[in-house]
C-alpha cells in the first residue's frame, strides 16, 4: 500500500527488483530498509508495548480491545503502567488544555523509538467537543501522531486495524539518529 509503483517498461535488473521490495516512498523521499533493519524492525514491530493512557470514553473501548475477545496480546502488546517501559502511546479520549502539559511530559518520558496513535475523533480533531473552550483541537497539536483511528468511539476492530497499520509502519522504520524535534510545527 505504501509502495511506489515503478513506471511501465522501466529497464531494471531482477536483483534491483528484489531490493526494491525494501524501497518505500514516504512523504519527503525514499527510504531503503536493508536486511539488518528488516530483522530489527521485525523485533520492534512484534513487541510494541503501549502505555495505559486512557482519558475518556475511548479508554473504555481501549480496555475492551485489551480484554479477552479482541486480545491485543496476540500481536505482542502488553500494556505497561510506566512510560519508561513502553514505546507506544495510544491517546484515547479528549485532550483538554489542563491535560496537554501532562500529555507532553509523559510523551517525552518515553524512550525512543516511540510512536503515537490518536484514537477517536476527540483525539483526532477535538471531535464533538471541538468548539469547547477547554478542549485542544486534536492531539497532533501537542505530540507527533503516527496513526489516526477514526470513530466515536472507534470499535475495537478499527483500533486493531489502526495498530496493524502502525506495525506495518514500524516495519519500515529507519533509525535516523535525529531526535524528534519537539517544537516542529505540526499543521
Amino acid at each position: 500500500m505504501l509502495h511506489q509503483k515503478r513506471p511501465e517498461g522501466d529497464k531494471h535488473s531482477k536483483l534491483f527488483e528484489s531490493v526494491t521490495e525494501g524501497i518505500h516512498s514516504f512523504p519527503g523521499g525514499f527510504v531503503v530498509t536493508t536486511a539488518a533493519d528488516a530483522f530489527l524492525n521485525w523485533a520492534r514491530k512484534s513487541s510494541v508495548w503501549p502505555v495505559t493512557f486512557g482519558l475518556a470514553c475511548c479508554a473504555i473501548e481501549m480496555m475492551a480491545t485489551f480484554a479477552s475477545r479482541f486480545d491485543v496480546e496476540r500481536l505482542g502488546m502488553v500494556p505497561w503502567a510506566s512510560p519508561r517501559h513502553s514505546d507506544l502511546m495510544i491517546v484515547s479520549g479528549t485532550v483538554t488544555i489542563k491535560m496537554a502539559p501532562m500529555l507532553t511530559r509523559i510523551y517525552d518520558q518515553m524512550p525512543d523509538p516511540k510512536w503515537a496513535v490518536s484514537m477517536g475523533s476527540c483525539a483526532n480533531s477535538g471531535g464533538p467537543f471541538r468548539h469547547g473552550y477547554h478542549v485542544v483541537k486534536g492531539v497532533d497539536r501537542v505530540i507527533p501522531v503516527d496513526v489516526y483511528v477514526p470513530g466515536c468511539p472507534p470499535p475495537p476492530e478499527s483500533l486493531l486495524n489502526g495498530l496493524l497499520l502502525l506495525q506495518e509502519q514500524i516495519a519500515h522504520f529507519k533509525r535516523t539518529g535525529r531526535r524528534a524535534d519537539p517544537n516542529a510545527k505540526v499543521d
Partner: protein
Amino acid sequence: MPESLTLLIAPFVVLNAVIGIVTYVTLLERKFAARMQSRIGPYRVGPHGLLQPIADALKLMMKEDIVPAAADRPVYNLAPIVFLLPCMFIFATIPFAPGLGVADLNIGILFFFAISGMEIVGLFMAGWGSNNKYALLSAMRAVNQVISYDLPFIFAALTPVLLAGSLRLSDIAAAQDGLWFVFYPVIGQLAFIAFVLSTVAAENRAPFDILEAESELVAGFRVEYSGMKFALIQLGEYAHILGSSFLGALLFLGAWSGPGPEWLGPGWFLLKAMFMFLLVTWIRWSFVRIRVDQILALSWKALLPATLLLLLATAVVVVWRANGGA
C-alpha cells in the same frame, strides 16, 4: 578433561541454559495466564508466538537508555547488575543430575540462602538510585517484605535438610529415593505449604507483589529503568523465581527420581521445577493483592512461629526415629 576446564565450561553452560529457560518461562507464564483468562496470549509472533521473548529482548536492547537527571548515577547504573548477579549465582549449587552441576558444595543450601538474600541490596539500590518517590516507597516496602519472608523461607527449607541429615543438595535429593519429602506423613505437607507461601512472598509475586503495585506505585522500584536495564531486572526477577522453583522441586519433589531410565533424571527435574513455577503463577493470577501491614503481620505473627514449631517437630521426630522409634 583437566579439572580447571570443566570448572570453566560447566558454569558457562548452566548460565546460558538458565537464561534460555528464563526467556521461555516468561512466554510460558504469559500463555498460561492468557489461558486462565480465556484469551490466547502471544500468537502472531513466530509459530504460536514462540518467538515472542526473542522479539521482546531484541526490542529492549535497541531502546534508548534514559538516565534521569537527578538520579544518583553510579548507584542507578549498578543496581540492575547487583540485582542480577545473586539471581544467577543461586544456580551454582543446584545439581541437575547426580554428577551434573556447577559445584556441589557440602553446604549447598546455606550458599543458596546467603546469595538469595543479597538480591535485596540491588533492589534497594534501584529504588534509591532513581530518585523517584514511587521507587523510594517501593524500595522501603521491598526491604520490609523480603527480610521478613526470608526467615520463614529458610525454616521451611530446613525441614528436608533435617530429614535428609545433610546440607549438600545432592545428598538431600538422594535421601528422597524411596519417599519424596512432600509425601512424608504430616511434616512434609506442612513444610511444602510454608515453602510455597514464603517463596511467593520472598519474590514479591502477587498476591504479595506490593513492590510493583501498578495501581499504587506505578511500577515500583524499576519505574525509571528503560531498555536493557529494565530487561536485566526482569531477567533477574524471573531467574530468582526459577531458582526457588528448582530448589523447591529438589527439596520436596525428589529432584531427579522418576520412572524410566537413569539419563531421564534431569528431564524429570525440569518438569517438577516447571510444576512448582506454574503453581506460583497460578497463585499469582488468581488472588487480589493484600496490603503492606497485612503482609508483614502474616509473616511475623503467623508464618514464622508456624515454621519454627514445624522445625521443632521435625527434630523431635528425627531424634525419636534415630534411636529405634517405631
